[in-house]
């Protein structure tokens, strides 16, 4: 059993942060790695990135968006409540080097994942440009935290309620056109966002890393459910990733495989409401 030691609602109750007591994981986890949790006996196993950790206090932080049955169930939990299973750290850690100028792009809850990695790039001595986007002002998360670690930070909202109006690709394009020292783009967010970013960076020949989120069960390479096509090869995102060379990813296949259970997911949520 794993205790939630702190709960914080971040974006009007649709994005929530948990600090969970998991000392062994907190000791080992690195930026880019994730955990899989199962709330209770009947629960599904879902993967969530470790957004931050405190090795000394034995605490890991997860930030999740409420999108379906499990995340809705998690919203109903409070500080002091228990989560039945938490397993990790899973996946490869992000490979962080001092490369110079890097652009870190995050969309939606992707920002939560981005933050841990961006912090590591910052600590490794890179010049970090952050571009974070959300549907609107209320959905924007971690602005202050990102501000602390980014040398420049641009914010976009789809509806223009805050920051620049439009998608994250807008400011990214401007940067790519104006700065010649960008060594790397790291993007994490909705599949369509990552796909469009990679179209752009490919044109500018800037290496781009994306963090993929296929449907997972075990997270240890045992089921093959998380397989993604990278170039001509099939990879298991939970052990070979979740970070991959964004220019090689088959985004349409990922989108397709992630939609297998759309109807069941709806049914499951309805069942839980009833």
């Amino acid at each position, binding site marked *: 059993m794993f205790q939630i030691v702190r709960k914080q609602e971040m974006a009007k109750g649709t994005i929530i942060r948990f600090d969970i007591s998991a000392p*062994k*994981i907190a000791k*080992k986890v690195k930026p880019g*790695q994730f955990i899989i949790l*199962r709330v209770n006996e*009947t*629960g*599904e*196993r879902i993967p969530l990135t470790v957004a931050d950790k405190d090795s000394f206090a034995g605490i890991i932080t997860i930030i999740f968006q409420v999108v379906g*049955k*499990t995340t809705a169930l998690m919203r109903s939990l409070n500080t002091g409540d228990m989560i*039945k*299973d*938490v*397993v*990790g*750290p*899973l996946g490869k850690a992000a490979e962080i080097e001092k490369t110079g100028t890097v652009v870190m792009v995050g969309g939606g809850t992707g920002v939560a994942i981005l933050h841990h990695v961006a912090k590591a790039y910052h600590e490794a001595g890179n010049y970090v440009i952050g571009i974070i986007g959300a549907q609107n002002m209320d959905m924007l998360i971690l602005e202050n935290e990102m501000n602390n670690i980014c040398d420049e930070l641009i914010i976009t909202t789809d509806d223009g309620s805050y920051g620049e109006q439009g998608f994250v690709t807008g400011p990214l394009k401007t940067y790519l056109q104006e700065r010649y020292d960008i060594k790397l783009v790291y993007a994490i967010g909705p599949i369509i966002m990552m796909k469009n970013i990679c179209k752009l960076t490919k044109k500018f020949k800037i290496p781009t890393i994306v963090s993929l989120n296929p449907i997972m*069960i*075990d997270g*240890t*390479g*045992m*089921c*093959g*459910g998380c*397989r*993604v*096509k990278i170039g001509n090869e*099939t990879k298991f995102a939970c*052990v070979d990733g979740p970070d991959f060379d964004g220019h090689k990813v088959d985004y*349409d*296949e990922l989108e*397709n*495989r992630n*939609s*297998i*259970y759309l109807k*069941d*997911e709806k*049914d*499951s949520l309805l*069942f*839980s409401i009833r």
Partner: protein
Amino acid sequence: MFDQDVKYLKFKTLINTYCPHCHNSFNVEKKEEKSIIFKAKYKGQEIDLKLSPYLDVFDVETSVPVKEGDELDDVLCPKCNKSIINKTVKCGECGSKVGEVLISALSKLMPFYICTKFGCEWHGLTKADERKLKLKIPRQDMPEQDQKLRVSNYQEVPYGYTGELALLEAGRCLQCKDPQCVKGCPVNIDIPNFIALIAEEKFDAAAKKIKERNVLPSICGRVCPQEDQCEKYCIVGKKDKPVAIGRLERFVADYERKMDLVKVPIINKETGKRIAVIGSGPAGLTVAADMRQRGYGVTIFEALHETGGVLTYGIPEFRLPKSIVQFEINYLKNMGCRIETNHVIGPLLTIEELLENFDSVFIGVGAGLPVFMNIEGENLGNVFSANEYLTRMNLMKAYKFPEYDTPMPHGNKVAVIGGGNVAMDCARSAKRAGSDEVTIIYRRSRHELPARGEEVHHAGEEGIIFKLLNNPVKYIGTDNNRIKAIECIKMELGEPDKSGRRRPIPIEGSNFTVECDLAIVAIGNGPNPILFNSTPNLKLNKWGYIEVNPETNETSIKNVYAGGDIVTGSATVILAMGAGRIAANAMHKKLSSMKKK
């Protein structure tokens, strides 16, 4: 005199009752022995006659021409017209040559003699007679769920023997002096002895006898490929079907469990030394039990949230009820083993770190990496690995969706690629999940199907279609990238390959398509590298499995042992257990000769 009830009175009968709702058997009750005795006369003297305990087996005519009070010398066999007194048989008790009574001259099978000279009662079979008799008992089937009903539930298919059936089946064993069956058993269970104990109705003792060699008999009785092991070599099998050793094993283990006769063994004095076991499959469980028994502190680390390995996440409920697996694991807990689930060794703790806290480490992580064929369309929606399909169904209980949150893969027409136990399990699960049509596509012929005979048989009964000598070449998708068909090519069998099975060869131009909306790839598993990434000095062979010293199962790292599928590649439960035992023995030998730290 021989009433209709005779059949039921001849045995000390065990009444094994089944609940009509859940099919659980309960209330095992003993009835007193009642033999049919009647009085007759021989040379003027009154004697008792008893009926053979074997009669009902052979369905012998019960109209023996003897009536109460008859003078036996006068009674003739209606068939051959000879006296039913057989004077040529020597009394087995006193050795006198004349005057034995053989009442069932009709069947020539009467095993009960009364020596008319001295009145000795002789359960009168010569060894040769007995052999003949035993060979007449047909192999007993297990009662099982109705074929039509069972495809709509997930309950276990066979109910197992009743005490009565077990006695009959045990009666078939010839108690060989040089038992071949034992040689076929990977852990050399003392088979004739445990069967003899069953025949004496000492079911509990029979279970304990098996447990001297095999700690998980209720599991092995269900899943071992007996037809390739003990039963393959059984002498009875040369003439008839072999003794159903597996079913008997299952029966006594279930009996012991249901009658609450399983006792936690006395643990040896604590040695103060500690063992870490990685993986809670059959290999790991065996090491844990053996070492705990010897007084070592044992901690099992399991990556998943549930223990049992393939027994839990792979083999379905209708073949191996999860309550049985959990019973065995509770047994280990009661012995004092610690179990840590949600611990992926490698990323969370390395083997090096374990060695700081433990005196020995055992690696029993199985072969958990699903293999794909790398053909076009394999990543289409609704193409699954068997591992994913079975994990969803078994570990995550997707068959109870939406009560359980994990969704179940849907398909009306399901194609399963492969011919092993895994393929049968997927196909039969899909049938139970409500698919209209389930087809197994296998590249060799029926003869080469590697699955247990019983599983193939059950799959056939349940309406699974077998498309043999076919191999997929490509998966074809719909407009929205879901699978709609598999293109296959026909195969023929060529010369035998290294495994002794005939090699399948594609027949050029014989391509055809099989329609389906769900495909499950069950063509095998490989070694999962997740543990090895953090342990570069662990020596692997060219296929990625761990190299061990076959005598001790020790790896290239000192005090680190390995066994089961991660050493041999996908094999069987009993081989994994056997490997665990070798490692435990070697560990113990080494640790007990070392001074305390």
